């Protein structure tokens, strides 16, 4: 479940980022500070985007920064970050990005249920509204707990 992989400590609201790279670094920082990933994992995400393109921008306004487990995932987790100002990733259909869900996965399947919850949330207008207006991480987490 999504609520098992995220927590208030992993939510960062109204983050300042001047470009896509800073947006990824800041969204991943919550995972880094809480021991979910190693610094190398963040570098791997950036490298993949530079090599393959912004395919982590999975739908309009939403990026799912992640890399292979071997790149430095310590524990499965999902961070939630919103940007004060949306940034351009260079995706031909889904730019700009305002919401980032940084994913750390230690194997291929344990987080499947959490991602199923997330796909459901990304269909809900009120979830985006909540992300836009939430003042505290607890508001976001309370919403997710009540899914």
């Amino acid at each position, binding site marked *: 479940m999504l609520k098992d992989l995220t927590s208030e400590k992993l939510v960062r609201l109204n983050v300042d980022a001047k470009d896509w790279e800073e947006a990824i670094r800041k969204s991943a920082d919550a995972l880094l500070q809480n021991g979910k990933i190693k610094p190398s994992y963040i570098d791997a995400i950036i490298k993949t985007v530079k090599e*393959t393109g912004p*395919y982590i921008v*999975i739908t309009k306004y939403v990026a799912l920064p992640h890399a292979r*487990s071997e790149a430095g995932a310590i524990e499965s987790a999902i961070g939630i970050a919103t940007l004060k100002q949306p940034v351009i990733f260079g995706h031909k*259909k889904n730019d700009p990005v305002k919401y980032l869900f940084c*994913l750390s996965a230690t194997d*291929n399947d344990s987080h499947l249920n959490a991602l199923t919850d997330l*796909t459901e949330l990304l269909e809900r207008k009120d979830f985006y509204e909540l992300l836009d207006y939430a003042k505290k991480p607890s508001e976001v987490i309370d919403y997710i707990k009540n899914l």
Partner: protein
Amino acid sequence: MQYKGLVACRAGVGSSLMLKIKLNQVIKEHDLPLKIEHGSLDAIAGFNGEVIITLSDVAKELVAKKLKQKIIGIDNIMNKTEIFDKLENFFDEETAKE
């Protein structure tokens, strides 16, 4: 005929997994003859199905490799119409071959 598809991305743990979730919803809703496997790009070497489905940027990379499978690139994984239209297109091409 029942077709086999592989959903893959670079890491195989994030975008492609969410894409798989949405694909399976579309397949179920329209009762499409497609069975989905899932993995990272490493899984392509051992895959013997007809179609590989991934995100658009990754699709570009795969097309350049000239694999035997049809490559489908999805721009917006939450857009079920896009997913359905691109799958339909694949089935039409397959039917035309017969």
